[in-house]
C-alpha cells in the first residue's frame, strides 16, 4: 500500500454494493452549471457566428432557399467531391491507426531511453503548417530530394523515380505524418495505465498473446481508440492544406470546394450548403461515436507507469521495437530532419552540377547559419518585419492563452460527461462539442465577421479573436482526451472519499484530479501544439505587426528568392524547436503532490 489511492481502494471493500442507477446521484443543477461555461463559449463564438453566416449566405440565394441545396446535390462533381472527402478520410484514419497503435503499444508498455524525445518529435509534426510540411517532404521526396537523388545515382536513372506531390499517396502520407501523434498520445496514455495483470489473468486462463489482445486489451482500450479515430477522421475529413498543396488539382474535398466557392466565386449559398453538409457529417459521426463509447467506458484499476512498464528484455522484443521506431522515424522524423538540415545548409547551383543531372540540381556546399542571421535583419525597414524573438513571443502568448482557456472550458465538460453518461444533457451536448472541429474554417471565419460586429463583441479586428478561434479547435481535444480517463475512475473511489467526509470539490481535487493528471498534461500539450501551428484563422485575424510564427513563415515562403526560402526554412526549424521544447516542458510539469502517475 504505497499510495493514498491504494489505501482508499482498500477501504472500498467495506462499502456495500449499490445498484448502478442509484449510484452517487448528483444534483442536476451542478451538471447544468458546469456545462454552462463551455456552452456559453460555444454559443457566442461558434453557433452565433455560424448561424449568422449561414443565414446571410442563404439570404443571397437567388430563388428559393432550396435552390442551392438542389444545385449541390444534383451536381455530379459535388457528389464526387463528397465521396472522395469521405473515403480519403476513412483510409487516412485506418492507416494512421495501423501505424499509431503499434507505436502506442511500444510507448505504453515499455521503458527505454529517448521515449520523451520520440513523443515530442511526433508531436512536432502536428504543429507544422502545410506549406512547411510540403517543403519538408519535398526536401526528402521531391524530384531532387534526398531519396530520389540517392536512387538516381545508385541506379543510374535519368528521371527521378519517385513522384511524390500531386498524388493520393502524398495526401495519405501527409495525413499519417500529421495525425499519428494523436493516436500515440490518446491511446498510448490510456494503455500505459492498463493493469498488465489483466493480461496475466487471461494468460493463466489459457489465452495466448493474440487472444489476450483481442478479447481483453482491445475491448478495454476501445474508448481511447475510438476517441483517437474520431479526431483523426474529423481532421482528415476537413483537411485543407494537405489536399491543396500535396494532392494538387486532381483532388478536391468539401473544404477545398468551400474555399473555391467562397473566395474565388463568392457563391455563398452553395458554399453554405457544402459547409452544412460537412457539419452534418461531423455531427452524425460524433453521435455514432458517443453512442458506441459511452457504453464502453468502465471503471478500470489504473496503475502507475512504474508498475505497468518494463524494459525490453528479449532480442526479439528489441528487434520489433526497432522496426516500429524505424517506421515512426521514417515517416515523421525524417522530413523534420530534412527540413532542419536544409535550413542550415548551403546549396549552390553550378555549371558542373548541371551537366550531371540535366536540371541543375543544387549541390550541398556545407553548413551555414546565414539563414538564421538574416531572420534578425529588417532589410527593407519594412513595417511588418518581426524578429524571430517577437514571433516566438506572440506564438507562445497565444498558445498559453489557448491552453488555459481550453482547459478551463474542457475540464468541466469532461467531468460532467464522465459522471452520468447517459443523461439527456450529456447525450445531446457531447456531439455539439465536436462540431467546431468539423466546421469549415473559411465559413466560420466569415461568420465572425458577420456576427461579432457590435460592441462589446466587436472583435472583428481584435487580436483576442485569435486565442478564441484556437480554443474552439483545442477544447474539443481537451474534452476527448480527458473523458476516457475520467470515466475510468471507479465511482466507488469517489464514494469512499465522500463517505469519509469529502465534499464534491474535495473529491474532485483529491480523487479525480490526480488520477487524470496525466491525461490533463496530454490535453494541455495538444492545446499548445494546436495553437502554435494554427494558420488559417490566425491569418485572417492577427495584427500584421505581431505575426505568429506560421504567419511569418508564410510571408517568407510566398516570395521568390533563395534567401526568403532559406529564412522560411530557418523559421520553420525554430517553430519545430519551440514546439518540441514546449511539449517536453509540459510533460515534465508535475501537478502538485502527485509524482509520476
Amino acid at each position, binding site marked *: 500500500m504505497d499510495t493514498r489511492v491504494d489505501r482508499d481502494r482498500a477501504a472500498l471493500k467495506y462499502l456495500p454494493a449499490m445498484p448502478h442507477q442509484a449510484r452517487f446521484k448528483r444534483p442536476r443543477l451542478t451538471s447544468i452549471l458546469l456545462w454552462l461555461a463551455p456552452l456559453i463559449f460555444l454559443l457566442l463564438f461558434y453557433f452565433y457566428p455560424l448561424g449568422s453566416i449561414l443565414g446571410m449566405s442563404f439570404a443571397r440565394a437567388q430563388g428559393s432557399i432550396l435552390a442551392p441545396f438542389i444545385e449541390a446535390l444534383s451536381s455530379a462533381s459535388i457528389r464526387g467531391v463528397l465521396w472522395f472527402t469521405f473515403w480519403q478520410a476513412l483510409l487516412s484514419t485506418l492507416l494512421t491507426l495501423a501505424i499509431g497503435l503499434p507505436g502506442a503499444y511500444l510507448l505504453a508498455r515499455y521503458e527505454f531511453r529517448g521515449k520523451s524525445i520520440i513523443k515530442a518529435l511526433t508531436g512536432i509534426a502536428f504543429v507544422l503548417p502545410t506549406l512547411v510540411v510540403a517543403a519538408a517532404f519535398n526536401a526528402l521526396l521531391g524530384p531532387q530530394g534526398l531519396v530520389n537523388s540517392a536512387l538516381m545515382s545508385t541506379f543510374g536513372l535519368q528521371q527521378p523515380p519517385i513522384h511524390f506531390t500531386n498524388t493520393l499517396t502524398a495526401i495519405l502520407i501527409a495525413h499519417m505524418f500529421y495525425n499519428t501523434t494523436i493516436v500515440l498520445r490518446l491511446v498510448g496514455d490510456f494503455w500505459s495505465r492498463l493493469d498488465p495483470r489483466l493480461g*496475466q*489473468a487471461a494468460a493463466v486462463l489459457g489465452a*495466448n498473446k493474440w487472444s489476450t489482445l483481442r478479447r481483453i486489451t482491445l475491448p478495454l482500450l476501445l474508448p481511447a481508440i475510438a476517441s483517437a479515430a474520431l479526431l483523426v477522421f474529423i481532421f482528415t475529413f476537413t483537411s485543407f492544406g494537405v489536399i491543396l498543396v500535396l494532392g494538387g488539382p486532381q483532388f478536391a474535398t468539401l473544404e477545398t470546394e468551400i474555399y473555391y466557392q467562397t473566395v474565388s466565386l463568392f457563391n455563398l449559398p452553395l458554399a453554405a450548403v457544402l459547409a452544412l453538409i460537412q457539419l452534418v457529417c461531423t455531427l452524425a459521426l460524433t453521435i455514432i461515436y458517443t453512442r458506441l463509447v459511452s457504453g464502453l467506458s468502465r471503471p478500470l484499476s489504473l496503475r502507475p507507469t512504474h508498475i505497468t512498464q518494463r524494459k525490453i528484455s528479449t532480442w526479439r522484443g528489441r528487434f520489433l521495437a526497432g522496426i516500429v521506431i524505424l517506421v515512426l522515424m521514417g515517416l515523421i522524423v525524417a522530413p523534420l530532419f530534412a527540413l532542419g538540415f536544409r535550413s542550415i545548409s548551403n546549396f549552390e547551383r553550378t555549371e558542373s552540377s548541371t551537366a550531371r543531372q540535366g536540371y541543375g540540381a543544387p549541390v550541398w556546399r556545407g553548413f551555414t547559419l546565414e539563414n538564421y542571421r538574416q531572420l534578425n535583419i529588417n532589410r527593407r525597414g519594412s513595417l511588418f518585419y518581426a524578429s524571430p524573438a517577437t514571433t516566438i513571443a506572440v506564438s507562445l502568448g497565444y498558445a498559453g492563452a489557448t491552453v488555459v482557456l481550453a482547459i478551463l472550458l474542457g475540464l468541466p465538460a469532461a467531468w460532467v460527461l464522465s459522471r452520468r453518461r447517459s443523461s439527456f444533457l450529456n447525450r445531446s451536448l457531447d456531439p455539439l462539442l465536436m462540431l467546431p472541429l468539423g466546421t469549415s474554417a473559411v465559413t466560420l471565419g466569415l461568420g465572425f465577421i458577420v456576427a461579432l460586429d457590435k460592441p462589446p463583441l466587436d472583435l472583428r479586428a481584435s487580436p483576442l479573436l485569435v486565442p478564441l478561434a484556437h480554443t474552439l479547435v483545442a477544447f474539443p481535444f481537451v474534452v476527448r482526451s480527458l473523458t476516457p480517463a475520467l470515466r475510468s475512475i471507479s465511482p466507488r473511489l469517489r464514494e469512499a472519499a465522500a463517505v469519509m467526509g469529502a465534499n464534491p470539490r474535495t473529491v474532485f481535487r483529491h480523487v479525480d484530479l490526480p488520477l487524470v493528471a496525466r491525461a490533463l498534461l496530454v490535453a494541455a500539450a495538444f492545446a499548445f501544439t494546436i495553437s502554435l501551428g494554427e494558420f488559417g484563422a490566425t491569418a485572417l485575424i492577427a495584427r500584421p505587426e505581431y505575426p505568429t510564427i506560421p504567419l511569418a513563415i508564410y510571408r517568407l515562403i510566398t516570395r521568390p528568392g533563395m534567401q526568403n526560402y532559406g529564412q522560411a526554412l530557418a523559421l520553420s526549424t525554430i517553430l519545430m524547436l519551440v514546439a518540441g521544447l514546449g511539449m517536453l516542458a509540459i510533460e515534465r510539469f508535475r501537478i502538485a503532490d502527485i509524482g509520476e502517475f
Partner: protein
Amino acid sequence: MNGLSITNVHKRFGEIDALIGVSFEVAPGEIVAPLGPSGCGKSTLLAIIAGLDSSDQGDVQWDGVSLAGIPAHRRDFGLMFQDLVLFPHKNVSENISFGLQMQHVQKEDADKRIAEVLELVGLPGFEERDVNTLSGGEAQRVALARSLAPRPRLLMLDEPLGSLDRSLRERLVFDLRDILRQSEQTALYVTHDQEEAFTLADRVVLMNTGRIEQIDTPQDLYRRPASVFVARFLGLNNLLDGTLQTHDGNMEVITQVGRFLIPPHEIDLPRLKDDKYLDSDEDDQRPVTLLLRPDAVSLKADGSFQLYGTVQETTFRGSTCRAVILVNGLPLRFDFPAAVSVPGAGEAVTLGFEAHQALQLFFVDSASSSAQDR
C-alpha cells in the same frame, strides 16, 4: 513423481534475492500452503510456477516433465490473484467462461459448468451480474469460480482472503476448504495468516526472506518448529537465550530463568546447521535458544520441572487465559485453558511441566538475532 515439483529455484531482482534454493513438492489432490510474512517471496514463487515470470536457476516440473519454456497459457494452471483482477468489461458468466472458451468448450457444456461452479461457490444465479457492482465477498467468489471452472491441474491462490473482514474471512476459509476438497483440486494456497494456512492445508511451507524454513503438516509444524523463526512466527513464546553443555548425554541449559538439567532422550538434541547431531560427549559450551511452550505448562506443581514465579497480569481471551508470569525477573507468557482458574496479579505460583512436552532447543547461528523475548 506426480504432481508439482519445485527444485532449487532462485530468483533475484536487482540487488534483492527474492527466492533462494526453494524446493518442495505438491502431490495430486494435496493442498499446500506457502506461509510467511510479507516480502518472503510467496507471490514471486506463484508467478514463476504459473509461468508469468522465470527463475534464474532451478526447475519447475509437473508429473516429472519440466515446464521450462512452456508459456503461461499452456500450463493448465489456475491462478487467483490477490486483488482478483476480474475483467471489468465482462459480466460474471463471461468472466467465468473465459477459461472455458480458451479450452474451446461447447457453449452448452460451458453454461453447465458455469452454473455448477457458481453453485459451488454459493452464488447461484449470478450469471448476468456486472462484476463492477459486486460486494467484496461476492467478487472474491467469482474470482475463485473463474479459476476453478477450467479444472486446472493445479490451482494457485494468492492471499485470496486478504482484504476481507474477519467474520467473512473466517466463513469463507471453511467454504474454500470444502470446495477444494470436493473438487479434489491440487492447490497452492499462499497466505501470511497462520490460521488460514492451518485450516486449509495438508502441508505448510513456511518461508522467510526467500528461503524455506520448514515444510510439515500443520500439527507437526506447530509441535516441532524447526527454527527460532518458525517458533516466533507461530507465536510460540518464551524463547530464552542460554548456553548448553552436555555431560554423559545429559543436557545442561543455563538461562536467565534458571538452570535446566534435562535427562538424556527426554527431548531431541538440537540439530546443527549442517544437520549433524551433537556429539554427546562434547564438553564445550554452545549458545542455544530454549523454547518453553506456553501451552504445555500447568499450575499444579506436578511434573519433572518446576518454576516459581509471580503473576504479573492475566488476560481472559475466551477459550484461553493468557498470563504473564515473572520468573526470576523475566516475564514469561503462558496460556491456560479457561477452565483453570489463574491466580490474580501479585500472587505466587508454581509452574510444572514435562521436558518432552514443553521444552525444545535450538542452536543459535549467526543468521538469527537474539531470541530473548521481551
